[in-house]
């Protein structure tokens, strides 16, 4: 065990849900950070997914049109 | 300007020297290009001195940082013209495609550029130190670090110059690409001078600067050559 830490308790580290939100007074910092992280992660996934769907839609239209002109 | 005679099978050192001489000749012909960065250096130093109200104590403390940062910026200014002239009149293509080995003329160009920027700034550093009230005991350290660090600046900067030579507004892009790469040289160079002022030994920084320059000399020519090929093919 290192100098900077000490196991306070085993199990949930907070006495109440209010304490959990407050994060010992640092609630803003912690929740902002976690929120930002979740945003970045989700954004990375969503952006790719949307671009992909759009691209497939475009390609399908293109392919259909081409198939129709070829059939003529 | 900078036209190349049809290459015969010249040895690498001869190729280097002939290109090097050509570069110096063209520098002498267009003196402004070489002088402007140096003028900028001293102008900017003077601005700092004036901005600090000519206060010796303040200036003495930040002099190493000021000098080093402005050396970085002035070096970058002189990098812009490194390949541009030859790019515009078509000799750059001949230079990299015909010469064997391809990176030798490039190395010569970079060496010539270093002479008119890094080396020149090293020699002029005492004046800069004087204007900023740098103690004279520290000047040798300043000069040594500049001497060892500026080749790396020229080499790394040449990579950026080669990548941006064909692009519009290449100057700003050059800064964005190259300044992060300059950070280690800046840190070691500046901290060496500051530490010397505080009486601490500076050997580590000197070794690091030498190492960085060595690594740059080994790698930069190939990368510059590759970058020039990309730029020229556009």
């Amino acid at each position, binding site marked *: *065990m*290192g*100098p*900077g*830490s*000490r*196991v*306070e308790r*085993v199990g*949930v*580290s*907070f006495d109440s849900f209010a304490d*959990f939100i407050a*994060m*010992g007074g640092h609630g803003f*910092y912690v929740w*902002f*950070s*976690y929120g*930002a*992280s979740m945003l*970045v*992660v989700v954004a*990375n*996934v969503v952006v*790719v*997914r949307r*671009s*992909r769907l759009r*691209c*497939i839609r475009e*390609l399908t239209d*293109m*392919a*259909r049109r*081409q*198939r129709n002109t070829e059939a003529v | 300007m900078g036209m190349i005679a049809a290459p015969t099978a010249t040895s690498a050192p001869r190729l280097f020297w002939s290109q090097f001489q050509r570069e110096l000749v063209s520098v002498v012909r267009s003196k402004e290009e070489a002088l402007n960065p140096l003028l900028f250096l001293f102008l900017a130093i003077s601005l700092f001195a004036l901005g600090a109200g000519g206060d010796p104590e303040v200036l003495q403390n930040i002099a190493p940082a000021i000098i080093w940062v402005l050396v970085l910026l002035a070096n970058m200014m002189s990098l812009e013209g490194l390949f541009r002239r030859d790019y515009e009149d078509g000799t750059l293509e001949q230079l990299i495609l015909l010469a064997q080995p391809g990176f030798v003329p490039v190395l010569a160009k970079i060496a010539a550029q270093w002479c008119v920027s890094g080396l020149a700034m090293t020699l002029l550093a005492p004046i800069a130190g004087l204007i900023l009230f740098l103690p004279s005991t520290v000047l040798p350290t300043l000069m040594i670090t500049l001497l060892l660090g500026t080749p790396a600046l020229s080499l*790394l900067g040449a*990579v950026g110059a080669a*990548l*941006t030579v064909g*692009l519009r*507004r290449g100057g700003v*892009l050059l800064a*964005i*690409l190259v*300044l*992060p*790469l300059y950070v280690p040289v800046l*840190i*070691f160079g500046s*901290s060496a001078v500051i530490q010397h002022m505080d009486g601490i030994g500076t050997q580590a920084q000197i070794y*690091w600067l030498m190492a960085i320059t060595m690594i740059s000399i080994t*790698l930069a020519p190939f*990368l510059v050559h*590759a970058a020039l090929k*990309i*730029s020229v*093919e*556009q």
Partner: protein
Amino acid sequence: MTLKTLWHRLGSPRWFYQISRPWIYVLGILALVLLVTGTVWGLVFAPMDYQQHDSFRIMYVHVPAAMVAQSAYIVMGFAGVLLLVWRMKLADMVLATVVPFGMSMTLLALVTGAVWGKPTWGAWWVWDARTTSMLVLLFLYFGLYALRQAIARPEAAARACAVLAVVGMINIPIIKYSVNFALTLHQKASFTLTEAPSMPPEMWLPLALNVLGIYCLFGANLLSRLRLEILRRERGTQWVRDLVLSGSA
């Protein structure tokens, strides 16, 4: 499969497109499980730090982001080498697609680092070794982005970025040494990662989970971006047309 056949196969975008599909699901699910577990554990169950109290929990998002940000750039450096030396097509696409993820993670690391710094050191920003090298990394990413935007032809842009990525990758250890050398002298007492092994397992295990999770996320994201890029670049080919028409892209 021998290395040689793998090498040849990797040169075929079509093969890669097909082979990568299950991997996206594998890595994606792994990422989800690891990240959720790690985050919940770190947020709720990990014991409070003696010095920093609960603000240290930011570590569970800051450190993974910082680590993957650096790794992503190194991936690009290696892709650059593969492109310049062996002209591997896939490497070309890797260079085009990693930058958004890497840059967003670098920004996240910087922001969470600053937010962590405020309650810890009392300042939003300090010029210490790790913050500075993260900032320089951001500038390196930005350089790649700017260079790619400035060059019109995609093949030339990829090769130019390859050169820059190689130079940057070589510089990264040098930058880290230099900032470590010079800037730790002025550093105020701060929570350093090297103390991690001295943390009890209840504290660093969730961190390990999050780190693994974010690397899995990186992998899954990279694969899906690569597949998208393959579709874009191979749009004129028969196999892509057949693929989209059959609805199984």
